[in-house]
């Protein structure tokens, strides 16, 4: 049934003059003679509906008749999602046959306070700097923050390699506004190592329009919820990268001529973020542990969107350009990276005290660096010299060869147990390795025999 006609088109924003009162917000409309074009209704008044286009609007005609397609974007809600790759609207894009069994609207879900579950076990990642400074437990939301090109995606991939491959969990990967090349690589790698069967992937790539990019998050959440609520599994949710969701929302808000807040963000940004982050929760059915890469625009850590997103995180790992510049990967800023587990009651006194001591050393090291730049290293006191040399060893020690980076570095990856990390760190701090050259600590796993 024809519900209206198109009267205005401006990029992805479309206005439809209505001749029917059956249209609601969230409905999907399409052009009667050409189903290539479809739109989601954003606002309605008694004569017209403003819509955003799910795809390109090039070639769309003024005056075209519009019909209603569905009551919102629906995503497969069955075992058929396993091992498959979808676009943001639930269409498979891995060129294999697909039978739909059951579909579910991607927007209608939330977890109540009653359902949220907060108790869980610690989850070791085998990455020294994460397990030592920002350990996590099942059900955590971990943010991986970094500016452009400091190693967020490599870290996400290493976590997939270490965590997903080693525990018996299901995984959902959501690519939001990221490179298609990396998406294809992830798919090939998972297929090659036979890890695809418990993984579901959704992509809204950086070449896709903003609606597709923002919807991919809701679609990914729907898949994770299926695995948690219907299959009663522990789920790992990898999102690369959640900032692009906000960015896509800003683009849509601009096209809809809404009033924007600082730096062009939409005024309802914090509401949007809350709606998706609260869906990433554990219930008694199963847990969702999420790793969310967070892009820092213009290296501005105080960016409004970044600040809102990180307020939902149980832990955060911050990547720093200055450390990447030294070639020390993963380039983690240990002063800003922490988690809710860094608590004497949760990780034990030994680990906690060591973290404190290492941070004390590295803080002093920073100060000493400035002194050395002016006076030279010889002018330091014996105590400061000790701190200086041991800190350099610590800094090198927390670099690590990664499995997924072997192709770049030519060094095989290492999974390091927490007990080994604690012993090594203790030894460095106590001066056991004072006579060892610092370069011996660069890109290794554990040091002690």
């Amino acid at each position, binding site marked *: 049934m024809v519900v209206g006609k198109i009267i205005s088109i401006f990029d992805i924003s479309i206005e439809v003059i209505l001749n029917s009162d059956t249209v609601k917000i969230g409905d999907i409309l399409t052009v009667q003679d050409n189903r290539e074009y479809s739109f989601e209704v954003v606002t309605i008044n008694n004569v017209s509906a403003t819509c955003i286009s799910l795809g390109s609007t090039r070639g769309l005609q*003024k005056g075209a008749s519009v019909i209603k397609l569905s009551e919102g974007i629906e995503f497969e809600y069955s075992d058929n999602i396993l091992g498959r790759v979808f676009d943001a609207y639930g269409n498979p894009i891995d060129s294999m046959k697909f039978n739909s069994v059951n579909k579910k609207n991607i927007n209608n879900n939330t977890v109540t306070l009653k359902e949220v579950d907060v108790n869980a076990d610690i989850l070791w990642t085998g990455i020294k700097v994460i397990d030592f400074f920002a350990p996590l437990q099942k059900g955590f939301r971990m943010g991986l923050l970094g500016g*452009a*090109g400091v190693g967020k995606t490599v870290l996400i991939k290493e976590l997939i390699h270490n965590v997903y491959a080693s525990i018996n969990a299901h995984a959902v990967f959501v690519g939001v506004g990221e490179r298609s090349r990396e998406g294809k690589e992830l798919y090939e790698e998972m297929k090659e190592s036979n890890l695809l069967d418990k993984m579901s992937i959704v992509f809204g790539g*950086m070449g896709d329009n903003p609606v597709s990019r923002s919807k991919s998050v809701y679609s990914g959440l729907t898949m994770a919820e299926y695995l948690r609520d219907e299959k009663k599994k522990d789920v790992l949710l990898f999102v690369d990268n959640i900032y692009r969701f906000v960015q896509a929302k800003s683009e849509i808000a601009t096209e809809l001529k809404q009033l924007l807040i600082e730096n062009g963000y939409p005024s309802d940004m914090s509401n949007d973020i809350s709606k998706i982050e609260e869906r990433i929760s554990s219930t008694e059915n199963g847990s969702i542990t999420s790793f969310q890469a967070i892009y820092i625009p213009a290296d501005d850590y105080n960016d409004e969107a970044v600040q809102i997103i990180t307020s939902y995180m149980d832990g955060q790992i911050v990547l720093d350009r200055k450390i990447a510049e030294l070639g020390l990967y993963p380039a983690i800023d240990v002063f800003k990276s922490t988690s809710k587990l860094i608590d004497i009651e949760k990780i034990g006194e030994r680990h906690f005290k060591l973290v404190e001591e290492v941070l004390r050393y590295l803080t002093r090291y920073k100060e000493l660096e400035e002194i*050395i730049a002016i006076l030279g290293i*010889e002018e330091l006191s014996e105590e400061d010299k000790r701190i200086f040399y041991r800190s350099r060893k610590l800094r090198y020690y927390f670099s690590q060869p990664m499995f997924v980076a072997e192709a770049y*570095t030519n060094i095989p990856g290492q999974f390091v147990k927490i007990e080994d990390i604690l012993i090594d760190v203790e030894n460095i701090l106590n001066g056991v390795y004072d006579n060892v050259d610092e370069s011996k600590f660069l890109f290794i796993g554990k040091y002690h025999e």
Partner: protein
Amino acid sequence: MDDIWTSNLKDTVDSIKNNNNVYTTGKVVKVNEYNVEVTGLNDVTFYEEVNITEKASGYVFGIYSDRVIVALVNIKEEIKPGDMVYALRKEFKCLFSLDSVGKVIDVFGNDLIAGKRFDNLVELKVENPPLPLMDRGLVKREMLTGITGIDLIYPIGKGQRQLIIGDKKTGKTQICLDTIVNQKDKNVLCIYVALGKTKKEVKDIYYELTRRGAASYTIIIASFHDELPTRTYLTPYVALSIAESFMLQTYDVLVCIDDLKKHADIYRQISLASKKTPGRDAYPSDIFYTHSRMLEKGCQHRNGGSITILPIVETKGGDITDYISTNIISICDGQIVLSSKNFTKGEKPAIDYGLSVSRLGGNVQDDNMKKVGSKVRIELLSYLDVRQIYELANIDEMSEDLQRRLREGKVILDNLKQYKFSPKTKKEMIDSYKFLTEKNAK
């Protein structure tokens, strides 16, 4: 003004009566600098090609209930309110000729050096939809530049997007030209896109490439600042559309875009003129998408063809963390950062080895290059770090290990110096670092 509205209504009624509505027509009601507002055009499609009598042409940029905005790409004569507008019932496309190789062209079918129009023109879509994920292959073939600091340490692969970023006068364009010249006899089609460069600069580049025998496989596409901004905005998209049509025929294509900062500024100008709400630094919110969908065209196709893109971004004061730079860094597969400090010190190419990155790294190198490259990179970065700290220290009191690192580091850095247009082969690169690898083998 009343006249226009009445006559427009009369025209429409007449054409319906006579049933001779070959084109949908409209009339200009407002003329802006590079767009016009039109009434009529009642069933026009978005992005349709439009002529304004014989005076100008453009495409449909926005459709409202009562008027249509037409972006102009070509103005021959001054447009006046009341001029007739014809919609051509087809998507706006650009023109390209296969004779373009070795020439300087624009994207509307003109040979700019000869100053005439090509004869055998084909129409090309400004933009094609993104390539399906499964049509992409893995990037693993090398694209050699002949520059040691790039090929060995931060290699570029066919299908990769490697940003070249740095201040004015740090040799950004030179790296592109070196790369183009180094593709001789390698079956790579090169496209150099000059955006907002001066006419003098473009002519210099044309002569330079011709003199070095690179013209036979290179197309230079130029758009200048004194043209309509819409033309400059469209040019890189069309350049990639051209590249895409060659990639689909299994060609390897290299596209250098010089530079995207100017493109961003032009897009900002157009957006603000069309009253889009400005965001950070007054750029519109979709500035990321503007570049991401453009650079996503760079890829390895599973049919064997590829598009490698080397976009250039000019920075100020060596700051690569500003909005546009970080956006583009986050889209690309790595960046070559050029530093003016290195440039003035005579360390040319002036690559900042700490800030440069290749996200594909060893994936695109052969085993030998990979082995030597990763060794050189680690030793070099550790030298640059150590050098800073021990700058004031007494060398005789240092440990044996440290002295060796400082000594070798200096040689590593020296070996990376290279004059322009003096490419090295892979063997020469590997040989110059024998002292590192052989010692390791012992």
